[in-house]
């Protein structure tokens, strides 16, 4: 009897939970409302079966529970009943399958005239490419990938020169226009999933995959990797901004083409040296850093990382938090670098400075720290040398007190919580696996020994 009540209670509870639960699809932002419709249809059909069969079972438990002197009914087969159930079930199944196949027929047919966008997956970030004026993508070869050519586009392919490259996890799409999304991966399987769009597809190294959609709502939508792609999988994040066509065109025009990224001149060390005079007041003449002035060592750090941080300071992406007192100071100084060329020049000069091991200031247990560092090594490299493709800066030979402060900042959301700071958000998610200050001291101590 308790069992029958429990079954009935679970059925009622399930139905109530279905209607009362606060979790349902995010408001749809694409043309794939038919997918939601088939989901709803499937809920109705399966929900009816769930309720009917379980309530019938509960009835049986109550009605045919053992009583003294009663005997079960002996009727091994009931052909008629069995056939009826088979037919009714088949009809129910067909009622769900048929609309499903019709929706899928639309999915496999990309509308003529759909524009194309390529999304590239790499541990653990997304980047994007548009075909440019000629409407054709340049060929790629993963062996050509480098910090200067992260898309691995063949430099000799004329089709690739006008490709618009977006080396970062945020992309824009025009409202109401069909777009075919091509998926490519450089290392392992990834997936480009935007829950608000419903459609998603794996990106597979060695081949190009695709799906299509029409964005139907302006706004900003999360993109996630939903195919396990390694240790930092859960931090692989992107964003799609859907906007009116003219805004999209303006955004697209502001993005560099592949040819432009190649043509950009290298930084001028002499010009950089002049700008560096300001920096040297805090960071030291040799970029050796100064803990008293809260200025970390710069010499030896990867140029791409310094460039990005200077740009982020300039844009207010870094140093945005009220609590980031030293970051705020740096915002003011970075603003003195007039443009990208100035940034490039000063970075070129810093890269020319001699690299020396800074004095260790943090005390901790290096062997415990080595265990924690296993997580760090996935992005920063086992020697802390930094890895450009994971956007992970060099850690070895850098200021340990600075790393400690940044780890604390990341954990407390002082750094990495600006909506445009995707890499910072990744590091913030990772830094949280260091559960206390001791763990931070230990790992920094270990890094000091690398």
């Amino acid at each position: 009897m308790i069992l029958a009540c429990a079954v009935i209670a679970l059925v009622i509870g399930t139905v109530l939970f279905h209607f009362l639960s606060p979790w349902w699809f995010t408001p749809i932002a694409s043309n794939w409302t038919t997918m939601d419709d088939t989901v709803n249809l499937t809920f109705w059909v399966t929900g009816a079966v769930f309720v009917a069969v379980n309530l019938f079972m509960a009835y049986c438990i109550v009605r045919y529970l053992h009583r003294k002197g009663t005997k079960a009914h002996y009727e091994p087969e009931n052909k008629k009943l069995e056939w009826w159930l088979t037919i009714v079930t088949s009809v129910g199944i067909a009622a769900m399958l048929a609309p499903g196949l019709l929706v899928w027929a639309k999915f496999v047919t990309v509308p003529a005239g759909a524009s194309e966008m390529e999304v590239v997956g790499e541990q653990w970030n997304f980047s994007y490419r548009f075909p440019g004026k000629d409407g054709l993508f340049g060929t790629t070869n993963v062996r050509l990938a480098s910090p200067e050519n992260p898309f691995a586009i063949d430099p000799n392919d004329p089709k690739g020169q006008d490709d618009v490259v977006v080396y970062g996890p945020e992309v824009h799409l025009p409202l109401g226009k069909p777009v075919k999304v091509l998926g490519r991966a450089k290392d392992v399987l990834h997936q480009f999933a935007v829950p608000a769009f419903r459609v998603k597809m794996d990106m597979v190294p060695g081949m190009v995959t695709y799906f299509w959609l029409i964005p139907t709502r302006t706004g900003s939508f999360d993109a996630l990797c939903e195919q396990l792609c390694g240790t930092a999988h859960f931090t692989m994040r992107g964003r799609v901004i859907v906007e009116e066509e003219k805004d999209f065109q303006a955004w697209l025009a502001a993005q560099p083409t592949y040819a432009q990224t190649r043509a950009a001149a290298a930084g001028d060390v002499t010009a950089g040296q002049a700008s560096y005079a300001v920096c040297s007041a805090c960071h030291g003449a040799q970029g050796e850093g100064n803990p008293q002035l809260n200025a970390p060592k710069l010499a030896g750090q990867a140029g791409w990382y310094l460039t990005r941080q200077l740009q982020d300071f300039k844009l207010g992406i870094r140093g945005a938090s009220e609590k980031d007192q030293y970051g705020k100071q740096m915002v003011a100084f970075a603003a003195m670098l007039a443009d990208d060329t100035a940034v490039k020049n000063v970075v070129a000069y810093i890269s020319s400075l001699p690299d020396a091991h800074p004095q260790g200031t943090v005390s901790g247990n290096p062997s415990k720290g080595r265990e924690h560092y296993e997580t760090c090594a996935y992005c920063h490299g086992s020697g802390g040398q930094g890895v450009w493709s994971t956007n992970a800066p060099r850690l070895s030979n850098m200021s340990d007190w600075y790393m400690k402060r940044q780890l604390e900042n990341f954990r407390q959301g002082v750094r990495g919580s600006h909506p445009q700071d995707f890499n910072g958000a990744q590091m913030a998610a990772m830094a949280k696996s260091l559960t206390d200050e001791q763990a931070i001291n230990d790992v920094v101590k270990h890094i000091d020994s690398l």
Partner: protein
Amino acid sequence: MAYAAIADRDHTHPLHEPKSFLTRYIWSQDHKVIAIQYTITAIAIGLVALTLSILMRLQLGFPHSFSLIAPQNYYQFITLHGMIMVIYLLTALFLGGFGNYLIPLMCGARDMVFPYLNMVSYWVYLLAVLILVAGFFVPGGATGSGWTLYPPQAILSGSPGARWGIVCMLASLATFIVAFTMGGLNYVTTVLQARCRGMTMMRMPLSVWGIFMATVLGLLAFPALFVSAIMMTLDCLAGTSFFMPAVSSMGQPLGYNGGSPLLFQHLFWFFGHPEVYIVALPAFGIVSDLLSTHARRHIFGYRMMVWAILAIGCLSFVVWAHHMYVSGMNPYFGFFFATTTLIIAVPTAIKVYNWVLTLWRGDIHLTVPMLFAIGFIFTFINGGLTGLFLGNVPVDVPLSATYFVVAHFHLVMGVSPILVVFGALYHWYPKMTGKMLDDTLGRIHFWITFIGTYMIYLPMYYLGILGLPRRYYAWDEAIQFIPPSVHTMNKWITVSALFVAAVQLVFLFNLVWSLFKGKPAGGNPWRATTLEWQTPDTPPVHGNWGERLPVVYRWAYDYSVPGAKEDFIPQNVPPDKLAPIGHAQGQK
């Protein structure tokens, strides 16, 4: 009949009479001892997997509170949890454990037809388990590439255990498959060749049918996993490129070229989907017998049940790519695989109807095995119906790789089969040991497990619809569409999981305590019809049947036959021992 040749070796001595403690309990060739060895080993490694799941839930419910669960550890835990539960616990327990115990006893044989091979099968299985566990201790730790072990990430440095952990995993799987093949050939041959007189195929209990068909599936499906394991080991150690296209890793180009990651996925799921039924079919069969025995009623529509098992078995080989709708394979495959997948729901639904119709007009005894059997039906209906979402291709696309999938497969192929395992252990423990398991502890075990697991997984469906991705170490605030209520729910789920895990200790205690203090069971405590309850000794001694093999006169489900004195007629009762009654002989 083919079976007579072996079945009739009645008065000759069995070939492998044990002579010492060592040959009786350790290097035993007796199917019952091997079954218990399999069962204990499977439960032991299953406890490891249970512990891993608790560690995972602690991280998800209370993120960043436990320094020993770093991201790479979390991925190692999910990988090993999944692999152990599916292969080393459920497959080994249903086939190596219940298959070994039940096939000879239910078919009326003295033992498996190849007892020596049967013994070797267990020891190779144990070796596979040891290699698996060794994976935790190699440099770099166990593999963390997910139980699907997809290349390229499984062997590239961005995943934990990409060098030695994955090699241990693959070596362990290959070893397991060797063990399974030895056992599997035995089960199939015994069912086909060693049934006693009168035991036609259509008189076999559904437990034997389920285990038999699952074994056939295993023999056909595991080779696909075996070759994938060998090929990926070569990719990892010898630099071949079976599954590896030109890739870079950490910004550095590698030497691989020309292989296909999708090839692995096809091979894996060509094994992986039948594997679902390798676990499910024995559960289907066993639960049918539990329901029939404890409802004192024949299984409803026996022939339809047998055909459904065969149909599911055959169809299970043509549905595999429904795991790959968003893998990047040619999307046109979606039409075919969605259709086959939804067709397989028809025989599955028939089985569910027939279980419920077995209760209908029955004489239901709510014993502990019966509680678990009914709990199974409820859980399986829920998990099975949500399979119709994921099998239908456009419905799957938004739900794939979310917690909806986690809820579905845990309910349908995790919780459902394990409820049957528990029911079956409560049901057959008296035969295995001669002692009853404690009833009160059994009921506590049932209620917390049944309700607790549903409370774990029901909310996950809705988290999945929201879009919560699975295989995430943590969901941080940067994801805009995830509200704080999700994190609260995750805490509740973890609390439920802790209760469910804790009550399994009660079950373990019951298993040990009852062995010494349990009520004596007698030969046939459930008043069941099938042959294993008709052995001259309980527990059955070596050779099972004493002087003469049983002879079978009727099907396995003569419960509550009209006019019969008792409400059950064992299969080996000849018609002339019965009062003259209508159609007491049941099926031919």
